[in-house]
């Protein structure tokens, strides 16, 4: 059984986000980039399925400029078998375009399971997995916190508002991962060395027959308003007083 995992390179979760002075976008100059945390969870889940003997091959795919190769190598060091880099240059891509590109890869590779993060922490769209499922006409299980595959069926526990929902789905399917699905492993140094030798295939939007007509335009980026500094109060009475009269929470 083949698993395809789509991964995105984003601004590192631990980096303080800065907005460009002209508010046109987030400032990525010299910023540390790494794999989207939800994608990391997707790769980890695929590797666990392979370790459990459920999957036989893991393919990772990432779309973007040359730098995404580094992210693909990272996923291969975690345990993916081969990579596909779709070279889209510096173009800004909307979720629909990405889903269209991924659908072509799905068509070519015919995986039984497609794993994606539920969203990327940069654009926070939460659309790609759903659009991909629609384009491929696959069943989908989003926000997965547990995935079990047996007897050509997937049982997926989903995190929904106020509880959990369990679905049973036929293969092939699309699963998007939530935070509690697993805790990704650290990458071992010997595996980093091995990953350098794993096959990494290059595609382009043209080679896949997808045109990059972006229907979404980012107009403005605004940083959140700064939190007000705390105040020190001398004693408990003053604390209660300020909670009542200033913060108005009592």
């Amino acid at each position, binding site marked *: 059984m083949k698993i395809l995992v789509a991964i995105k390179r984003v601004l*590192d*979760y*631990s*980096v*303080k986000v800065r907005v460009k002075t002209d508010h046109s976008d987030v400032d990525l100059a*010299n910023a*540390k980039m*790494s*794999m989207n*945390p939800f994608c990391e969870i997707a790769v980890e889940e695929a590797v666990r399925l392979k370790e459990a003997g459920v999957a036989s091959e893991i393919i990772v795919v990432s779309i973007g400029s040359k730098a995404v190769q580094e992210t693909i190598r*990272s996923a291969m*060091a975690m345990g993916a078998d081969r990579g596909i880099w779709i070279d889209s240059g510096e173009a800004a891509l909307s979720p629909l375009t990405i889903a269209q590109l991924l659908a072509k890869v799905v068509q070519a590779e015919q995986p039984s399971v497609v794993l994606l993060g539920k969203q990327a922490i940069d654009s926070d769209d939460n659309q790609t997995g759903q659009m991909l499922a629609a384009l491929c006409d696959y069943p989908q299980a989003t926000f997965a916190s547990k995935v079990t595959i047996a007897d050509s069926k997937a049982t997926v526990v989903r995190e929904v508002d106020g509880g959990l929902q369990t679905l049973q789905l036929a293969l092939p399917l699309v699963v998007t991962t939530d935070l509690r699905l697993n*805790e990704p492993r*650290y*990458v*071992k*140094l*010997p595996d*980093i*060395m091995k990953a350098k030798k794993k096959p990494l295939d290059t595609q382009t939007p043209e080679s896949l027959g997808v045109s990059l007509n972006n229907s979404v335009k980012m107009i403005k980026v605004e940083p959140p308003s700064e939190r007000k500094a705390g105040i020190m109060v001398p004693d408990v009475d003053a604390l209660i007083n300020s909670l009542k009269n200033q913060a108005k929470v009592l």
Partner: protein
Amino acid sequence: MNPEILGRLHNLLGDQGLRTDPLSCQTYGRDWTKTYEPAPSAIALPTSTAQVQAIIQLANQNGFKLVPSGGRTGLSGGAVAAQGELVVSLARMNKILAFHAQDRSLVCEAGVITAQLQQFAETKGLFYPVDFASAGSSQIGGNIATNAGGIKVIRYGLTRQQVLGLEIVTGKGELLKLNHGLVKNATGYDLRHLFIGSEGTLGIITQATLQLLRAPENLTVLVLGVPEFAALMQILQRFQANLDLTAFEFFSDRALHYVVQDKGLAKPFVTPAPYYALLEFENDSAQREQAALQAFQDCIEQGFVLDGVMSQSQTQAKNLWRLREMISETIAVYTPYKNDLSVRVSLVAEFLKAVDQIVTERYAAFEVIWYGHIGDGNLHLNILKPATMDKAEFFEHCAAVNEQVFVLTQSLQGSISAEHGVGLLKRDYLAYSRSAEEIAYMRALKTLFDPHWVLNPNKLLSIDTSSL
């Protein structure tokens, strides 16, 4: 303290600047060593150098004693006030006063928190390299007074290396402005360096000029499993041949056990290892990464390393660092007896083995937790109190072990306090690391800058009334 003096202090400092309530006395009367019962007479919180100067002058005139106080994260009792002293806390002198882009330096008051300084540097695209687990509470004044080291010493040096200038009020009450931010200044004795590491015994630091540096790029962390003490330094040597490491730390599996158990952190890998090394380097090119991988490969082949992981993101790097940085805080609840020792890097393996032997032979029942900045030859030896044993009895046992460990340290010309200072805790052991002649010069310097021994008396050096 007599009410008249309290009144004068109140006039000087105002309502916000003087505290005598029991809670403040408890809080400001102790540092991270919780062994001494705090008993200050009052807490002074000056807001200016002039106020600090006035306090010191008042102390000289009236014969009361002062304890300079920073973030109180010190581990040697240096900021403890247990003898009715007046605590002088720099907490309200916490402003960054100037930034000089071309000099790549800043001027700040002594009460600025270390982490604030780091963040300020970051907003300027620069870097303040002194860092350790208590940086969120410690103050730059306290860092300078203890010449704090931490996790980046191997690459950037100690606090001393960052200090370009100091403003000091001496124990005599005189104001000194030292070195003015200069890189070069060959005009005789560099008094600045006397105050760095003086533990508040010679003067109160009120301002500092600090060097900032280029921010390192893509700091990447390796955690390696190590089969034995001796292999640690082999790993260091092998990696240093290829790379400028920004950190080289170690911890034992027992130390890791506690952070994993109590903080819910994930183990780096499942392969069991008795010791771990944490390395950090600037992974700024494919060649650099290749050099690290090559060094790792060699270490595996030589049997120095059992297994290892490498951070793939800043988030992972942070989490791997937490394995090391959370140790001190995690084991604090087990009332550890702490030692902070150093020897030359080339003697570390021999030293570790010998100390381990002493401790296991004499105290087989005690649990020993090892960690430290081993790339600097600096080891933190922690002995945990058995839950059933009384605290006093436990510390008595440990003091006996100390003698042996210190004799060993002395025989290797090592230090009985690598970076935590002497304070109260190590005062009576000073002679294991410093000669009688050195100590005599230190006492003479103390008397020169602080003739009435008003500042931190009995810390570092015990008061010998005949010398006053």
